[in-house]
């Protein structure tokens, strides 16, 4: 487990990882508060647009169009970026992308880089790779900074430190931030001010910045970064060299298509009409912003997902995290239990596909980390049918496990029973004997695997007579 480049080394399968999280009352309280807050706000922001469903359908179709002709769009994007003075690099996997970024950073003469929050660079473990090459990467997004300073792992796509509350953040800052005064309060305003002071000098002196991309316009070569704090603008404007690492699927065909996504994304993610800052740049603009621009196009398992006609819809994802915020499983376990930078419902379908190996016990456990309640699909701004993909990936997981495991044998036996009404009724008669285990109509203890149910729930005693027996007796 964990030997692939996507999931964290040593993370146990989901049920085991969830065990610790469920017992952490502070984590539970933090998540309850944060997801509760954002759910209500999102619903309000979305209700304001009467054409929301039409926007979702347009977003879905634009992304499907991109995926269906991805090779054409990638070449188009490459041409447009190059024509405008950018340099395009391709990376088959995490190692290749990391090597490229490290080489470009060294060529720019830097041993320190400032980073805009980016899922792609988290996914490939860029910071660790740069550190191994002697380059220090400074996360500048507040939540990423909290995670970095706390030597922690992210637990949310949008707000990687969502599992931390203000008091915990204050403690991390006091310990790890030399400029933070010992009397630093836990008011969000004070914490934000501390982060501003900590990073300001870095912004003003950095030679190289590294970013991800929310969107890339194939026609024009324009790259879009959507953010809130202004750390993104700092990184995208002040350093001389900018390196952007972008998953292959982040393309939109034309500038006009952004009119859909710039409505879908802010309302779905931070529940705002518009996020504070969106930056758009195309190659290099003489005299304005970075004078060297590199774009690294990253595969790292994306073509594996693309090859699956059902699973490829996960590549429509615009990383808004609405599915995390509404997910009853995520709300209780938090993100780290999912064992990768992509937690929650989208992580449960994306991470296993990027890993591409259902023999990996951790990856294979992720599609089961859902009650299939469908709340994620309901809010997804690009209509990814997450429950459908979960069930699809479960079929791949069972196929990888083979037909001789206890679960497979049990399912085969159940299939055999249900295949014949006579056998089924015989099983009902046999099973109804369990009623003698019951007290007051409920059974409180069953042997394994039923014990997993009865650890916290009673089971109704089966009646002496099933409905079909009654029907035959009275109506047959």
């Amino acid at each position: 487990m964990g030997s692939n480049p996507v999931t964290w080394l040593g993370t146990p399968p989901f049920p085991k990882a969830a065990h610790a999280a469920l017992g952490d009352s502070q984590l539970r309280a933090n998540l309850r508060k944060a997801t509760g807050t954002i759910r209500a706000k999102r619903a309000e922001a979305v209700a304001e647009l009467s054409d929301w469903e039409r926007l979702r359908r347009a977003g879905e179709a634009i992304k499907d169009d991109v995926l269906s002709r991805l090779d054409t769009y990638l070449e188009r994007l490459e041409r447009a970026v190059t024509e405008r003075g950018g340099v395009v690099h391709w990376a088959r996997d995490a190692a290749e992308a990391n090597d490229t970024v490290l080489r470009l950073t060294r060529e720019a003469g830097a041993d320190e880089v400032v980073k805009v929050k980016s899922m792609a660079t988290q996914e490939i473990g860029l910071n660790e790779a740069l550190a191994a090459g002697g380059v220090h990467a400074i996360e500048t997004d507040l939540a990423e900074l909290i995670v970095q300073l706390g030597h922690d792992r992210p637990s949310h796509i949008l707000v990687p430190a969502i599992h931390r509350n203000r008091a915990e953040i204050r403690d991390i800052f006091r310990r790890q931030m030399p400029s933070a005064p010992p009397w630093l309060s836990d008011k969000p305003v004070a914490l934000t001010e501390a982060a501003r002071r900590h990073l300001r000098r870095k912004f003003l002196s950095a030679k190289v910045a590294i970013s991800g991309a929310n969107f890339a316009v194939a026609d024009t070569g324009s790259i879009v970064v959507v953010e809130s704090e202004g750390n993104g603008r700092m990184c995208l404007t002040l350093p001389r060299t900018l390196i952007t690492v972008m998953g292959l699927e982040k393309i939109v065909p034309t500038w006009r298509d952004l009119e859909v996504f710039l409505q879908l994304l802010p309302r779905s993610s931070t529940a705002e009409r518009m996020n504070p800052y969106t930056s758009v740049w195309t190659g290099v603009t003489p005299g304005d912003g970075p004078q060297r621009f590199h774009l690294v196009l990253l595969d790292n398992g994306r073509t594996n997902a693309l090859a699956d006609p059902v699973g490829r819809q996960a590549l429509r994802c615009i990383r808004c995290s609405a599915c995390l915020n509404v997910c009853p499983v995520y709300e209780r376990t938090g993100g780290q239990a999912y064992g990768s930078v992509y937690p929650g419902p989208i992580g449960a379908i994306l991470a296993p596909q990027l890993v591409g190996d259902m023999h990996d016990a951790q990856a294979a456990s992720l599609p089961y980390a859902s009650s299939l309640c469908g709340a994620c699909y309901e809010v997804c701004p690009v209509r990814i049918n997450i429950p459908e993909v979960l069930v699809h990936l479960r079929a791949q997981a069972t196929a990888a496990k083979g037909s001789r495991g206890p679960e497979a044998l049990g399912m085969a036996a159940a299939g055999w029973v249900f295949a014949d009404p006579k056998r089924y009724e015989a099983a009902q008669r046999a099973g109804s004997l369990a009623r003698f285990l019951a007290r007051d109509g409920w059974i409180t203890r069953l042997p394994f695997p039923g014990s997993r149910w009865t650890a916290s729930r009673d089971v109704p005693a089966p009646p002496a007579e099933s409905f079909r027996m009654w029907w035959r007796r009275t109506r047959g």
Partner: protein
Amino acid sequence: MALFATCLTDTFYPDTARAVVRLLERLGCTVDFPLGQTCCGQMHFNTGYREQAKPLAQRYAGVFAGYHAVVVPSGSCAGMVREFHPGLVGASPATTMTYELTEFLVDVLGVTDVGAYFPHRVTYHPTCHSLRMLGVGDRPLTLLRAVRGLDLVELPFAETCCGFGGTFAVKNAETSTAMLADKMRCVLDTGAEVVTAGDNSCLMHIGGGLSRVRAGVRPVHLAEILASTEEEPWAAIR
């Protein structure tokens, strides 16, 4: 028309299936229960045993061919049949004619007052598949509001999953239990004596949790409430 009882209700909750029969006959329907029926295959399908769900979907299409409607007292099984059987074995008249109970009452029979009487304080949990897969909307609540004597109390955070999720409840038993705990808290907050829903699977989960803590709140399927009248109260409630 035919009743598809579902394997869970047939085996564990015969009262619910009897209630459906009584209710539909009271409304003038002729109900058949073809004995060839077994299971819709949802457990296999949702757990990743797609191939083993296929013969069950095939069986369903065969057993219910020729009925002009099939009524299912489960949003989740009706959803399985309507949404996924066509993908497994192709569309058939049986799949398109399958209705969840409240859909059948409101859309096909056109009734919202079934003449029921149920003098209890009740809260309703909209099950995930009835809510999001089938989109039954407020049909169940409309039916419940018309029940005489019934004191309907709104369930807080009603649309949050109870944590059942089929094999999820055993594969991720602890997470499932954490979800159940919150659902139970909401149910208890209403002060209801009965929690109802359109799916016995979810009710088995919520009811199993409530029973374990001796909460004194009964799980009762919606069909049993709707079947109950002043002249003939539903046996299970006594």
